[in-house]
């Protein structure tokens, strides 16, 4: 694949598809969108297959000085690779989820989604600070339209809230970016990741970036836009929002805040820990009392993303790896849960939990998938959720046992609200005749659910496939953070040293069990 600008190509395909959709009829637009996203996914598979694990940190780099002020610089490391894979994997599923649910202005809808895909790939692949900002911020336009045009009853309020919240967070980051580029003399992200900004400036810069990413993640108390946006957005919009857009915040922390401002990150880690602890407990309790399914899952997203931030700010390999896996897992699982809601919403046009019941009787396959994703959300061993949450919590335990203690309650509360939801929807008697008459999932819905289920199990049983590409990058980041990492209150007693580092690349299985033992 030498010389082929595959990242640019991956962005051109959906862009061309978007342009075509805008001028086509409803049915043609659906097929064009599906085709474009599948081709992009195929290119993503090629990208992953050609990604050299243990090779140079930045691969598939492209550079062209096309614009004044910033350049078209693309390139990925393992972290970006996995998040790009998540985006291109979820996209065809989103198109399928909207197949019948969207009737009005289908061409424009599909164009907005494809444009969104271009921007997501661009955000993860950008290697120029300003190019990143362009892609990061541009996502507001299609998402504003998706929520506003195709959303629920209260869509206008939700779309305004989403737009203005996110915009206010981001513009402060832009100011910080200007300062950094003026200071360092380059807008090249890999260079900036190694640049030592003065410690006094780091605090301000960190806070400016935090304003943007904390809204995006979202962290308590800046999360209030999320339930509104999720509930009002169409199903596929929620999937993309939960699956990928929230990850932009986590990606921002791991790509910018941590490596560029390590001292400030360590200094302000207490803030992240505090907000995450509140989020885990508070939003889990809020989720417990929701009567609307989408709102419940939206609040659970806030709680799960808090586990991500906790893992990121653990300043060790387990925490960082765990945070990444939680992000991938949450992208799949919450996306799938929104799809599950969408499936029954399409049939009964209500998201009210009390209107359902006993679906396991008339929709057994649906109940099966729903159960799998519920368990993955709880973090049952064997599913992706377990791997991520376990590693994150193991990581934070080494940094602060108090934070670990509080965060772990999230798992228990998570089990409570998810099982309670599942019991009310799938078990019990069939109290409503119309709910009892709903048919089981059809072939299109099988095609949507099955790949996600497979990926969730794969990540749960053999996470090495997902850990391997990013191991080198996490090690580099860990080394950068090592000097600044805050003192731990729960440092583990050193045992007999291993022959090799935990993040050595060969003999995977032995390494794996070792990581498990180390976290006791």
């Amino acid at each position, binding site marked *: 694949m030498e010389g082929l600008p595959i990242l640019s190509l991956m962005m051109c395909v959906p862009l061309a598809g978007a342009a075509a959709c805008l001028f086509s009829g409803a049915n043609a637009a659906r097929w064009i969108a599906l085709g474009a996203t599948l081709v992009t996914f195929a290119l993503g598979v090629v990208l992953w297959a050609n990604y050299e694990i243990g090779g140079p940190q930045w691969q598939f780099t492209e550079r062209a000085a096309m614009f004044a002020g910033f350049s078209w610089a693309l390139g990925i490391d393992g972290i970006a690779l996995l998040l790009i894979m998540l985006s291109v994997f979820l996209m065809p599923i989103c198109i399928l989820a909207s197949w019948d649910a969207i009737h009005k202005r289908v061409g424009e809808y599909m164009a907005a989604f494809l444009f969104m895909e271009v921007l997501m790939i661009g955000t993860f692949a950008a290697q120029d600070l300003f190019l990143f900002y362009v892609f990061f911020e541009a996502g507001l336009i299609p998402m504003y339209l998706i929520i506003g045009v195709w959303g629920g009853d209260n869509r206008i309020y939700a779309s305004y809230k989403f737009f203005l919240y996110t*915009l206010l967070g981001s513009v402060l980051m832009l100011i910080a970016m200007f300062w950094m580029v003026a200071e360092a003399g380059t807008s090249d992200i890999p260079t900036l990741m190694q640049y030592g900004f003065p410690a006094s400036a780091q605090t301000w810069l960190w806070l400016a970036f935090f304003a943007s990413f904390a809204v995006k993640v979202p962290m308590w108390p800046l999360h209030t836009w999320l339930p509104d946006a999720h509930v009002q957005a169409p199903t596929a919009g929620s999937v993309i929002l939960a699956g990928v857009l929230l990850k932009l915040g986590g990606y921002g922390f791991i790509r910018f805040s941590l490596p560029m401002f390590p001292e400030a990150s360590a200094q302000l880690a207490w803030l992240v820990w505090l907000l995450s602890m509140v989020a885990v407990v508070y939003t889990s309790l809020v989720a417990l009392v929701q009567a609307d399914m989408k709102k419940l899952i939206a609040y659970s997203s806030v709680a799960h993303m808090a586990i991500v931030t906790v893992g990121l700010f653990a300043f060790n390999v387990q925490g960082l790896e765990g945070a990444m896996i939680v992000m991938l897992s949450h992208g799949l699982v919450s996306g799938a849960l929104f799809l599950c809601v969408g499936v029954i919403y399409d049939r009964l046009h209500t998201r009210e939990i009390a209107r359902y019941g006993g679906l396991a009787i008339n929709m057994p396959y649906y109940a099966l998938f729903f159960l799998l994703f519920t368990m993955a959300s709880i973090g049952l061993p064997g599913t992706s959720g377990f791997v991520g949450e376990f590693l994150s919590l193991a990581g934070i335990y080494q940094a602060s046992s108090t934070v670990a203690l509080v965060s772990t309650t999230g798992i228990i509360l998570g089990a409570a609200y998810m099982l309670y939801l599942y019991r009310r929807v799938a078990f019990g008697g069939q109290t409503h005749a119309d709910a009892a008459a709903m048919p089981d999932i059809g072939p299109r819905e099988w095609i949507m659910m099955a790949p996600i289920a497979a990926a969730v199990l794969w990540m749960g049983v053999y996470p090495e496939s997902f850990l391997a590409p990013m191991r080198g990058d996490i090690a580099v980041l860990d080394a950068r953070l090592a000097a600044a990492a805050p003192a731990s209150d729960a440092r583990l007693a050193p045992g007999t040293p291993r022959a090799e580092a935990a993040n050595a690349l060969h003999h995977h299985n032995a390494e794996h069990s070792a990581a498990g033992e180390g976290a006791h």
Partner: protein
Amino acid sequence: MDFAPSFALVLPELLLSFSGLVLLLVAAWGGDKAGRQIAIAASAALFVAGLLIVPGLHFGTEGPESLAFGGLFKVDSFALFAKALIYLAAIAALMIAPAFFASPSAGTERAMRAEYPVLILFSSVGMGLMVSASDFMSLYLGLELTSLTSYVLAAILRRDTRSGEAGLKYFVLGALASGILLYGMSLLYGFTGGTGFAAVRAGLTGEMGTGALFGVVFVLSGLAFKISAVPFHMWTPDVYEGAPTPVTAFFSTAPKVAAVVLTARVAFEVFGGQVAAWQQIVMFMALASIIFGALGAIGQENLKRLLAYSSINNIGFILLGLAVANTQGASAMLIYLFIYVAMSIGSFAALLMLRAEDGSLYETFADIRGLSVTRPAIAWALLIFMFSLAGIPPLLGFYSKFVVFQATIEAGLVAFGAIAIAASVIGAFYYIKFVKVMFFDEPAGVVTGKSGPAHWVLLGLAALIVSPLGYFLTPSLAALADKAAASLFLAV
């Protein structure tokens, strides 16, 4: 004195004045029936004048060879950049006019008055003088030529009370501003003993007396009136709403460019030695314009009025570049002006396309509800312009904010930049309201009329420039703006 080089430098102005006089005669005998032909001839004259400045713009002119008539005029790259924009905006104002004046919205006359293109031509001459003035006398000549033609243009629909009111308000307040400016100029003359920019600058060295300081403040206030910066903005919404829409489009582009460029030249060439004296004033005006421009727009129902507030808001961002007081800031200002002109022309062209079956125009939010269903092309173009005005990437409006804020931060004005950029979010609120009304609301279905090719061409061109494709223009645009800004500072 050999006048040949001087005449060569002002060739575009000579051409425009001459064509203006000839077309005035044609108008006198041909009457309003000849209006369209006169407009075409005037556009051609502007186009040729534009071609005349291309070599100077491309190769750059600066230093002594850019001075004409013994230092009264200075035709440097900075002036040429502004002139190019002014001519383009004037051509656009001529292109969109005939269809408007033929519609019922133009009142009972229903025909373009033949004076309209002639007035635009003379106004362009005045603006050309403004941007290349390097003496307070030539500055005032250019400014008044522009202002007087503008007053008449605002009131050109003689039987329409709103148009008359706009003209009268503009005249009274404009005259006041000119008076303030003149007073400031006379103070400066009294304290420095000269009217040439270089002479006044030489007299303003060292500690400034109270009288001279008053002069500086009065001159800047007079100019702030012309660019409608807060706190001298109050005439703008009324005039914009009352004036015929093509005239509003013209007001929000060409005279804005001329006045901003003139303000920059005065600030740097005359008061360049006393930056500390005016920097705070400009910083205040910039912040106040951004905030009041955004807040004032929120409750508006009339789209022209809203765009008036939007132009106040944009002037604030342009003044950020001036407040930085260095080459980078001046260059950023010029880039912003170019993109602002493209966005404004596009928005007004779109506004002029909101027509009923009989051709009358719509201009409130209620009329454009659900426009994306009934007229998707216009709605998508307006969406591009509004997101661009809000500064959302990947549209070109982001680039204009990008260069201005980059200049601000690199000059060390971090807190100032942070406040300004946070205030820009207020502005986003009403820009996205546009999109909300067009895309989210149920169709009102009143916009059914067809538009002529001139509108579509302008709309398409502006949308193309503002779309992400416009980023491919940025290297050449930045190079030109840098050259122009450098020529401004060379004189210092």
